[in-house]
């Protein structure tokens, strides 16, 4: 498979115009999405807490986000005396930019089934319904989620204040930890589709529902990715970064006005982007049955519906789960998710090699699962022994 057919005939001004318009449309989709996501989150969480939620601005409070945004713009822009001003100003942009850039690689529609390559024809040019399709797609996703750490870390550090610093230290530790699990669970997907490009990953899932990566990888990488993505987003139950009760507001304590608004925007932009990425990587992106009418519309509709399910789930998580303790968070990341992701990667790798060599599927699967179980027993045994030893090191003398 090659890249976007838009570039097949060389780059002229029409192609440039196409790219610019696509970027603008993509940005608009995300911005409008954020506006409605904030409203949606506030309404749903209010419903789950037996409240009414925003209902003053516009019908059903739909314009609440807009009102909040306008208010934020007109607020006084403060910074602490000890703030490192250039970095303090830069940090919010470092937070917002990766959130949007990640969205550019998501194919939001297109017909992939029946030999189609997902291209649509507009003004005599064929193009894909995604802003960009870099050949390193998935790596780009991981790179961007790493850059998002900088936004938070620099915001906390440049504030020159204690709570933001503590919040950002937590944040960077958390995000770096969960990036490993995130990356390892994506490798399983890449292994199956044989490409890093998001377009190819979606194309590989175009057949029936059995081709969706969530089923093709037996669900485990999907579950790991969802948990790691929630942690990566700093959303509840992994919102230790903000932890109002302990850290006031975390890394954005000292931010006000639209600079605070940017962090808020980035948070929700990331939520939407991450939901879209989960749908793209595991749930076939725009794949779904075409009931009547043009298949293109149905592709966009299915994609939107799948994203909405995840957005609702993120809100649901927030309404239901209490926050993790810091050591529990690290335990879950390092001692459970990473080993599991690594082990499952090996199981899937064994299956792929077995396919190449013509080994029996079930024998290979059973053998790798047995090895995985043994390894898990060994790992958890080692962790328990280490914990016990550490405890006796700490308390041994006192008891004796």
């Amino acid at each position, binding site marked *: 498979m090659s890249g976007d057919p838009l570039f097949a005939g060389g780059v002229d001004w029409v192609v440039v115009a196409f790219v610019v318009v696509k970027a603008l449309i993509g940005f608009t989709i995300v911005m409008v999405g954020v506006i409605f996501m904030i409203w949606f989150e506030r309404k749903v969480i209010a419903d789950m807490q*037996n409240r*009414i939620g925003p209902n003053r601005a516009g019908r059903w409070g739909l314009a609440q986000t807009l009102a909040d945004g306008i208010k934020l713009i007109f607020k006084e822009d403060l910074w602490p005396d000890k703030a490192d001003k250039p970095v303090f100003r830069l940090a919010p942009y470092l937070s917002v930019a990766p959130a949007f850039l990640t969205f550019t690689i998501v194919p939001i529609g297109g017909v992939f089934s029946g030999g189609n390559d997902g291209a649509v024809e507009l003004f005599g040019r064929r193009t894909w319904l995604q802003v960009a399709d870099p050949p390193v797609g998935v790596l780009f996703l991981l790179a961007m989620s790493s850059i998002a750490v900088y936004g938070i870390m620099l915001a906390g550090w440049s504030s020159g204040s204690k709570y933001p610093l503590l919040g950002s230290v937590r944040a960077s530790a958390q995000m770096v930890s969960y990036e490993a699990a995130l990356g390892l669970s994506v490798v399983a997907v890449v292994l199956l589709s044989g490409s890093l490009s998001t377009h190819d990953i979606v194309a590989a899932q175009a057949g029936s529902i059995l081709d969706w990566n969530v089923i093709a990888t037996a669900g485990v990488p999907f579950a790991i990715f969802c948990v790691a993505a929630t942690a990566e987003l700093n959303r509840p139950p992994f919102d230790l970064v903000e932890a109002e009760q302990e850290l006031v507001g975390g890394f954005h304590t000292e931010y006000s006005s639209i600079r605070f608004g940017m962090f808020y925007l980035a948070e929700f932009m990331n939520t939407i982007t991450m939901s879209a990425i989960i749908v793209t990587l595991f749930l076939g992106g725009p794949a779904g049955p075409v009931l009547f009418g043009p298949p293109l519309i149905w592709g966009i509709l299915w994609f939107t519906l799948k994203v909405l399910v995840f957005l609702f789930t993120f809100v*649901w998580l927030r309404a239901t789960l209490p926050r993790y303790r810091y050591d529990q968070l690290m335990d879950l990341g390092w001692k459970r998710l990473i080993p599991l992701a690594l082990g499952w990667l090996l199981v899937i790798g064994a299956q792929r090699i077995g396919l190449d060599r013509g080994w029996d599927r079930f024998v290979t699967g059973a053998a790798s699962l047995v090895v995985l179980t043994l390894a898990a027993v060994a790992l958890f045994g080692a962790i328990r022994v280490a914990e016990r030893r550490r405890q006796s090191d700490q308390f041994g003398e006192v008891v004796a």
Partner: protein
Amino acid sequence: MGYFDGFLVTLKQIFSDRVTSEYPKEKRPKPLRHHGRHVLNRYEDGMEKCIGCELCAGVCPARCIYVRGADNPPEAPVSPGERWGFVYEINYLRCIHCDLCVEACPTEAITESKLFEFSFTNREDAIYTRSELLVGDDGKPKKLPWEDWRGGDDDHTSAWMRATSPNGQAAYEGRVQWSGELGYGVRAPEAGQSGDPELAPPTDVEATAKGPLYAGSDTAPGERASDHRHVEAS
């Protein structure tokens, strides 16, 4: 389900009733004896009840009431007594709505309505004068532009009186011990304070007026007659 039970709990809440209401648009029912903005009552013939004795001003812990009494003009008396309150002011920037003035008043002249949502925007409006506090010719409180009156807020302005009795004796519960009011006449006692309204003491005005309440009763003073009946019933 174990770990996932919590998700069901939060999901169910979406379909359950809201505990909050859209406040300025809709209001919760107020308690019958809510302490709100005061009213100055009048007798059925339109005479003012206030006699300018200043007991309310004396008892007020917030010192928000200012009263000056004057002798009634003989040809056109304002109150049935010797004197009348020709200046009566309550400063609502100070009032704590403790209702002590209502309890102190010997003529049931001052009682409280259920209105508490009055957002005046200057100090002059905050000080209510006699003409603003006095009930109108229909017996209802006057409604000032900055006050948010809703249905029922202007009823039961003398509820405290009718709940116990003007002298505060619990044994007088259910006995009419109060005078009539302009627009309402002698209001019936508030029923059902001791539980079942059927068990409340009879509300015969004449019987009460004839003699001591406790005479012929096996109930000790201070005890509620209905308390005994209630125990037997249960």
